């Protein structure tokens, strides 16, 4: 089979590009430790969330010095907490989100950042972020979840340490 010299060159370059891509992502995951959503969050019984020790009373829980866990339940068409009351976390802390859904599949996206996950009934998504700036972030549901999907939004407030009150954040 005859393969043109230019075509061989092109093939080589293409393979190099591909391996390069895989390499950068592998480096990001292993070397730089970019956190990705996986099966760490475990499962819950979506029909009995109210009996769950944390999702039964979703909100912000302190888990260590400067470390917090945020439990969020997504359901048509609100985040709990997030929508009716903002999620409040202190600045310069490590925050782990635990997100699940009480009904259909939703999205949980902190607008303009890569804090973004699907919320699937029965599954718990966990991811960790560092809060490094005092400001408010929007949250949107970015997966179609029914006829008022476009109304499903919320807020995360990163507040100065002295304004933070763990019992306020919906907990």
């Amino acid at each position, binding site marked *: 089979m005859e393969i043109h010299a230019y075509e061989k060159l092109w093939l080589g370059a293409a*393979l190099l590009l591909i391996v390069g891509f895989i390499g950068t992502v592998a480096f990001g995951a292993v070397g730089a430790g970019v956190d990705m959503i996986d099966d760490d969050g475990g499962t819950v019984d*979506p029909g009995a969330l109210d009996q769950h020790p944390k999702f039964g009373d979703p909100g912000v829980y302190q888990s260590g010095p400067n470390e917090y866990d945020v439990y969020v339940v997504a359901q048509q068409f609100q985040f709990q907490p997030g929508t009716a009351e903002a999620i409040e976390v202190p600045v310069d802390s490590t925050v782990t989100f635990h997100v699940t859904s009480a009904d259909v599949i939703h999205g949980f996206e902190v607008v303009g950042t890569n804090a973004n996950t699907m919320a699937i009934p029965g*599954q718990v998504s966990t991811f960790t972020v560092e809060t490094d700036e005092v400001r408010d972030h929007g949250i949107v549901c970015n*997966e179609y979840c029914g006829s008022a999907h476009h109304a499903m*939004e919320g807020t995360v407030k990163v507040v100065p340490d002295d304004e933070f009150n763990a019992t306020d954040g919906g907990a």
Partner: protein
Amino acid sequence: MATFVDRYPEEASVVKACLTVAFVSLGIGAFFGLVQALHRTGVVRLFSSVDYYTVLTAHGVLLALVFTIFFLLGLFTWAITRSLERPLPNIRLTWAWVGLAQAGTVATAAAILAGFVPDIGVSADVLFTFYAPMKAHPLFYAGLAMFIVGTWLAGADWFLAYREWRKDNPDERIPLQTFMVLTTMLMWYLATIGVAVEVVVFLLPWSFGIVETVNPLLTRTLFWFFGHPVVYFWLMPAYLMWYTILPKLAGGRLFSDPLARVVFVLFLLLSTPVGIHHQYLDPGIAEGFKFIAMTNTMFLLLPSLLTAFTVVASMEHGARQRGGEGRLRWLGALPWRDPAFTGMALAGLMFAAGGFSGMINAGMNINYLIHNTLWVPGHFHLTVGTAVALTMMAGSYWLVPQLTGRKLYSRPIGLAQVVLWFVGMVFMSNAMHRAGLAGVPRRTAEPQYNSFDFTTTMGSIEELQLQIAVGGTLLFVSVVLFSFNMLASAIEDPVETPVDDRLPAPLSGADGSPRVLDNLRLWTAIAVVLVVLAYTLPLASIVQDAGLFGNVPGVPMLIGNFVESLAGVIA
């Protein structure tokens, strides 16, 4: 000189029946696309925001599934018949699959469109991905199942045709177009196992109430088992045209037949074990499985990069045959006045752009930034929405005259149409990509929020919305021109030679290439092994998590449900 319709009148009718369904879906779907572009951006809101999701479901299903796949059914029927140089073995079987696929389409479309009239009590506002536990009317799933079985029978029909041909030609290489059809269908059989199991085993019984609950992660994973390879099912008809028709339109011949075969074999092998790349953000799937899917995805770039080479090389060859010279000046020698050529060339150019944004999507880590934002529709309107759709429209200018025996009504209108599509898509897709980077979500009737504003690095959100609205309008006008041209061509007078339909042999033919390329059994076996490797463990762990039938009840997508939920939000 006779053309396809004179040689194979029955087959020509079959192809016309398929293309008619495709073009009607394109027309309706494009109208809904315009509605969406205007609604999302707040320019004009023709429908209520509740009905937006009915519109969006119809747009996705009619364009991504019906238009593309019916065009494929027609094109492949034409390609098999002309490249094997014989009529189909059993025309009754042929009409049976046409009828089944059409009936399925009508059922599914009816279930969706009924959503506009709440009194009927039927609705399927579940979008074309129909993620459970959102539940549609059973008619929606039943129609889908019929449609899929229709495509299976079509494949069977083509394999039978090939078997007949093989009996008479025991030693010949498989003709290139037939090879492309067969490898694509093998990929399709493998890929549709996912959606067939999802619909027939889980969703259909559940929508009838026979089963109470679902495992949403399982059905979603089965969907994407099918959902990525379906992308190649859209793309392979375009590739078939780029490899076998475009070089001729450019005035030359295909560069290399064996390399075209290699590309199709790679697609058969790699299209399916990648679906998990749509689930990078899903809980319940270990990172290692996502990594495997990503690796396969990146290798799947290879056949497309090879295609880019062949397409450009074949065009250059054509241009030089037409007297083109110089390093880049040969570009000027190409037949830019021919809408079929220009449309396909522009489609190829857009595909390159789509390839870049696709590489971003495929990167497991960068994906987090754009997942489910408007970036994603920005990306696939370049790929399926242009590389595929525009190639299909452009190809029709050359193909349809062979089916009707009538000349194309107007080449200038055709040319205006393809250029308009290109320009419209530059506006719409570029703005969608940028809005996505700002975090604007897709699939959202009113992406305007109370608690925050979107911020862009360059330009303003208003400017992006205007571009989406203008681009969408140009695209819609382009489809109107296309439909008009097709209708007007149908009532032209029949002529002896409506179009030059000869396809010259490739520069390097199949003869010198390894025979193993044509060993379809071998490639299928490897493809199956790769799928088993990629999917057994993830599926097993998902089933272990919540059981086959899960523990989540259905949530019907009905207006009544909406009113209650809204009351819940307000309370």
